[in-house]
């Protein structure tokens, strides 16, 4: 061909994720374990799929009245309805007042994309988004694409080995007015009631825009309705916010891309206008969302018997996770592993921090073929009866080889602090030149 390619100058995009998985797949050690799967695994090392789902899929496949006609731009109305109810509760005042609703999207990512586009066009505030490091690859990339600046915050205190929802006070105090704060997995937030009321007040005063993300409703407590208490509080306090709802984990149907972007507004009119704008964004990206996943979930949630069956299997999975936590802690204790392991059982959800140092993680990966990311955050459902002993022993070995074991301790003084990741801001960690308002200092001293 005589002419040059028009793609000649296109650079190869570096691979940002999957390196750990690649290494794991190339590893030939028979004991190798991968603890970083995104999905909920079962003991048989296959992704979890509640039995009610294939049952419903079969039923839908044999439904003679079913056709493949286009859905509207905002997706299946019945699905949005059950999703909204699941999120804010059937008796929510927002539902009664018809000021909550949403758009059926391509999974949680699609919801985040629509929200980011909307906020770019209509949010009157600085283009700043606060999110946790685990959200960098999802919310972070999408918001950056839309021109927002990303600032990170984290609840996990690697020194205290605890998750402290109170860090939100620092975030909100220092964020510019009308910033956007992503609240990922609100089911795992724990604060005394009085502090919630205070936090809500500060958020209202600074007009912070809340963007909730519910990735796996039901995986914290085992009961989907309990997991969203915090969200429902904010609804009742008259907040307007977005929530991206992902159904992949709760129903095991990752590949059908089922999600919802729910908007809570103060009036029905505002809600309708918001939805029309979201529709217009969807129109030029995917036109309308895929139907199958939403039909499965609508069928399950609308049918009392199927709903009960689903909740039961969800509860079973969550109880398994809690049991695994206990087992891991106990095995480490029996081995006499140095360090405190309370944080294993004190965290909740599918993913938790192991609390060990980067060197110890490295030891596990390279010497013991146990694959965990550098942050030490691992997926508890990847631990099963076959590999739990090996894992516990390996952690024990790693700690003994490269001590000390994890212990709650005070953070090092500011002179000796060398931030590992310059983007990672740990609120509460005093840095040079940081000013704290009197109220914040008072709160901190009371903790």
């Amino acid at each position: 061909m005589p002419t040059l390619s028009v793609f000649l100058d296109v650079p190869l995009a570096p691979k940002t994720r999957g390196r750990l998985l690649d290494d794991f797949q190339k590893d030939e050690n028979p004991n190798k374990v991968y603890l970083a799967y995104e999905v909920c695994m079962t003991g048989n090392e296959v992704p979890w799929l509640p039995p009610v789902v294939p049952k419903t899929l079969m039923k839908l496949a044999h439904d003679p009245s079913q056709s493949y006609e286009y859905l509207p731009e905002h997706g299946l109305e019945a699905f949005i309805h059950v999703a909204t109810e699941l999120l804010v509760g059937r008796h929510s005042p927002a539902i009664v007042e018809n000021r909550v609703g949403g758009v059926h999207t391509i999974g949680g990512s699609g919801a985040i994309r629509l929200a980011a586009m909307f906020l770019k066009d209509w949010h009157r505030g600085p283009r700043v988004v606060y999110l946790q490091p685990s959200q960098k690859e999802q919310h972070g990339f999408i918001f950056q694409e839309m021109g927002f600046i990303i600032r990170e915050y984290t609840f996990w205190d690697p020194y205290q080995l605890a998750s402290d929802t109170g860090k939100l006070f620092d975030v909100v105090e220092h964020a510019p007015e009308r910033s956007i704060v992503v609240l990922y997995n609100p089911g795992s937030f724990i604060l005394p009631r009085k502090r919630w009321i205070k936090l809500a007040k500060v958020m209202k005063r600074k007009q912070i825009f809340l963007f909730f993300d519910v990735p796996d409703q039901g995986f914290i407590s085992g009961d989907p309705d309990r997991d969203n208490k915090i969200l429902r509080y904010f609804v009742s306090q008259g907040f307007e916010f977005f929530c991206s709802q992902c159904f992949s984990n709760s129903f095991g149907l990752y590949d059908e891309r089922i999600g919802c972007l729910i908007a809570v507004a103060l009036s029905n009119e505002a809600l309708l206008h918001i939805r029309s704008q979201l529709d217009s964004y969807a129109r030029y990206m995917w036109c309308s969302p895929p139907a199958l996943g939403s039909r499965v979930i609508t069928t399950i949630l609308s049918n009392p018997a199927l709903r009960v069956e689903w909740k039961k299997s969800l509860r079973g999975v969550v109880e398994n996770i809690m049991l695994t936590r206990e087992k891991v802690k106990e095995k480490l204790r029996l081995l006499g592993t140095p360090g405190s392991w309370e944080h294993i059982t004190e965290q909740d959800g599918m993913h938790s921090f192991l609390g060990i140092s980067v060197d110890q993680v490295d030891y596990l990966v390279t010497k013991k073929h146990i694959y965990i990311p550098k942050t030490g955050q691992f997926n508890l459902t990847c631990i099963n009866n076959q590999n739990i002993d090996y894992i516990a022993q390996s952690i024990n070995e790693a700690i003994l080889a490269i001590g000390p074991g994890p212990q709650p301790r005070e953070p090092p003084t500011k002179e000796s602090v060398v931030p590992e990741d310059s983007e990672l801001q740990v609120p509460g960690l005093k840095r040079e030149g940081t000013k704290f308002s009197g109220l914040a200092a008072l709160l901190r001293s009371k903790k």
Partner: protein
Amino acid sequence: MADRDNPLPPKPSAQRLGREKLPPPVKDFRIDAFGAQPRTGGFRALVAALGLAMPSSIFADVPQAQPVLVFKLTADFREDPDPRKVNLGVGAYRTDDCQPWVLPVVRKVEHQIARNDALNHEYLPILGLPEFRSNASRIALGDDSPAIKEKRIGSVQSLGGTGALRVGAEFLRKWYNGTNNAATPVYVSSPTWENHNGVFGAAGFTDIRTYHYWDAAKRGLDLQGLLQDMENAPEFSIFVLHACAHNPTGTDPTPEQWEKIASVMKRRFLFPFFDSAYQGFASGDLDRDAWAVRYFVSEGFELFCAQSFSKNFGLYNERVGNLTVVGKDGDNVLRVLSQMEKIVRVLWSNPPAQGARIVATTLSSPEHFTMWKENVKTMADRILLMRAELRSRLEALGTPGTWNHITEQIGMFSFTGLTAKQVEYLINEKHIYLLPSGRINMCGLTTKNLDYVAASIYEAVTKIQ
């Protein structure tokens, strides 16, 4: 209307409440009995009871966005109580009973998939289901495509044809003709499917132009105008071409005309971006409908082809599409695909599986493939029949004007040539719904309503000039 550059002055903040302590709306956040009594009141009632003004929504300035015309048309049709009503606006296939049709091969394959206990429902790769991607591109380019043999093609599974167009458009805006050159002219046919403008605009292109296509006077292709626009277009401009069954006119270039088009595009370094939504649906023959794309490939073009399987598989709502990339060599395509992965990552992350599985299973099994081709031919044949029948009735009635374009046009749509006023008459007086452009969907015609529609068109043309 407020926007980011002209913000309204900030609204007054919500008035302070008289008391510091609000009555707690829920008893305790960690233990709250499921199935608590429905709260009568909520925030609004509380505010009203305290005699305060309702704080205004932070979204108060967000206007209502315009809905798509064809959806409104369908909504009006649905609400119309007249028993004679006919919907010639919808963009989906209908049987002679005016019902949607699930292809028999699709029914068979979806049962097979549902029965598969070992099916893994993990996330698909970002670029999609591998079996789907390779089969989809193979269908467009042909089994014996030199580009496939030389391993210089790539595929991206997308959310329908729209998703494929969007991925391609985003890529071109980011990496084509420079880096982030949003000013590269994008040419769409006049007329074209409305979404073309929207997709390229949303992808960031700032200069979207039209090229001559429909000649209203002679009711056919304005080849002269088209070629002239291509001669005048800046080099490296992007041209959105309909692979077959042009939407909305149903008028395609002949092979000889395509050869002329390709020749000009090659000389002017214009980039072909094909939109292929009707392969198999237009003539009933998959290879015939892909002739234009394959010709361009054989002429050494690098091109994109956005494929939709909504119509030819009848899988409208499962959003099955594919973007086929043809490059000069494998290395270029590899780099292009790596960037497309990044683009997909911030659009929808990874695509849905069901539709892709159905298509992949069908295309890779000789038995199912044959059955599919027959199903597609069934649909195409019914449309051809409706075309013939409508034309013969219009001519039998002595309807003023020429009506050979009804059978000469191809695919689902026909540009009847009716004026906006005549269209209005049909909608309001005869309850026959079609687009203001005069576009009709042949699938809306049935043996039962052909006479009524033909008679109505005759009325409209004779009564309204």
